[in-house]
């Protein structure tokens, strides 16, 4: 499967574009930039010969490309401005099947999740997102990131610790309505 036809490419895009968009959002890419980066990810996948069946799942393969895209994008964005637009803080979450109330709740949770993830540096964040949110195995993550498996495990452990602590702090933040609710749930 070294050459993809447009149909194959289209099929891959249809199946995994939402996954890539989600992954990019969890990696801190602003909502307004997600579509551009999704295009770049699938373009790179296509030009690189596409996904070859092997130990890595298509999601792992696409996540490895998306990670590089997100890292480059983040670097560029940091040089442009350190101010994050309010629009970007709110995640691109939203499902037409949900009720407005549930949809709003989901948005708030994802906004809080992104804020907690912002506490992680990029190396830990990608391992955490892939392992905890995408359900990838640590071995597969190590393979696609080109790092030793032990390193991937230690990053995951460190990321879990920071995530736990940051979530605890953010739960107590009075400005967040969700934080108050979570606090009630937690107690």
């Amino acid at each position, binding site marked *: 499967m070294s050459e993809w036809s*447009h149909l194959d*490419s*289209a099929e891959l*895009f*249809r199946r995994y*574009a*939402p996954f890539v*968009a*989600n992954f990019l*959002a*969890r990696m801190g890419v602003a909502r307004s930039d997600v*579509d551009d980066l*999704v*295009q*770049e990810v*699938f*373009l*790179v996948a296509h*030009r*690189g010969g596409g996904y070859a069946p092997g130990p890595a799942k298509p999601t792992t393969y696409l996540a490895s*490309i998306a990670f*590089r*895209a997100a890292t*480059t994008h983040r670097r560029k964005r940091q040089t442009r401005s350190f101010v994050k637009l309010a629009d970007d803080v709110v995640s*691109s*979450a*939203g*499902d037409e099947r949900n009720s407005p109330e549930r949809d709003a709740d*989901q948005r708030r*949770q*994802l906004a809080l*999740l992104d804020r907690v993830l*912002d*506490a*992680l*540096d990029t190396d830990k964040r990608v391992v955490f997102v892939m*392992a*905890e*949110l*995408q*359900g990838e195995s*640590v071995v597969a993550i190590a393979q696609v990131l080109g790092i030793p*498996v*032990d390193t991937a495990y230690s990053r*995951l*452990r460190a990321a879990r610790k*920071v*995530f*736990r*602590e*940051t*979530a*605890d*702090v953010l739960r*107590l*933040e009075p400005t967040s309505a969700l934080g108050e609710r*979570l*606090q009630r*749930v*937690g107690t």
Partner: protein
Amino acid sequence: MTDIHEPPMWEDPQESSALRQLLRAGRVENSDYDVESGLARHLAQLQAGAQVPGWAVQTTLQKSASWSLLAWLVPPAISAGVVGAWLAFQPAAPAPASLGNFVPAPSNASNAPAAELIEPARVAPAPTRVEADRSSETKEVKRVLEEREAAREQVELHDHSNVVARSARPATRQNSTRRARSSHFEDAPATSNGYAAVAQSRDSNGVGAGSSVTSVTSVTSVTSKSANEEALANKVIAPVSPAAQEPAPASVEEAKSVERRAKEDESANGANAKEDEVSGARLEREMRMLAVAQRVLTEDPARSLRLCRQGESEFRGSMFSAERKQVALLALVQLGKVEQARREGIPFLRAYPNAPWSARLREALGTGKLPAP
């Protein structure tokens, strides 16, 4: 191989329900990404032959073995080519050893061997990179020489009043200094420990006039005070005459040379030592303030906070700035101003999530009480 015998956080019962709920929200694929319009754009890009973005090209090149091999081979090859070209333009006659690599422009066309090094016929029409580097190095050396010259003059003015006869000094200082430089240049050893000597011009009679000869030598030894005084006295009191400008006996010249080296060393080290002393004192003061602020954090948080604010106003942006900030936040917690501490502390913790004190600060902000250190 290391293994984590832990379930994912979102289904780990030991985690808080709020945390699991948060992670479950992230696991749901609920992006509002418009797949159809995205796909249309993607296919259009493919048909238009869109190029791979720059970051992907760089990564591909960096990962390819051939590129790595080229990265190892090309720089040495370029260096060898440049050195070969430089050697091809070298003059046949060997340069005087004392001149080293630096070849300044001559002020007199009839000058001796030094001028021959840059004779126009032997120089390439367009300056190569090596020549440009040499030129910049020469400028740099001249600048350093001028600075050292100024420092040396200062040292001479202040340090040796007890050695030289006061009446003779004003009239003879300049001449003697020039003479000393001249004689040093003439007698400079060929191996000057890597430092270069720069000759600008010489008199046509072959005797160094001393007014345009400057040198820099390494300072590696310290001589006795009596030798220095004797050398300086000889230098100052001797009459200024052509006979006096002849090279002196080796022992006297050597003493002069050593004495001058010692002065240069003193002046350079003196300036550096003063700077180090000032910055060291500031650092010590800052560290003491921080240490006191940490020590009195529990008993007197108001004082601790005051010290932190004072430290920040005095040493803004220093290497202990973050450390000071976390002490101030802990002091706020101890003072009962927990809301203010959280307001300032949460963005601060976001900036420093993994500092050695982050965990303690997190706990303090979360519980509203100062944890044990």
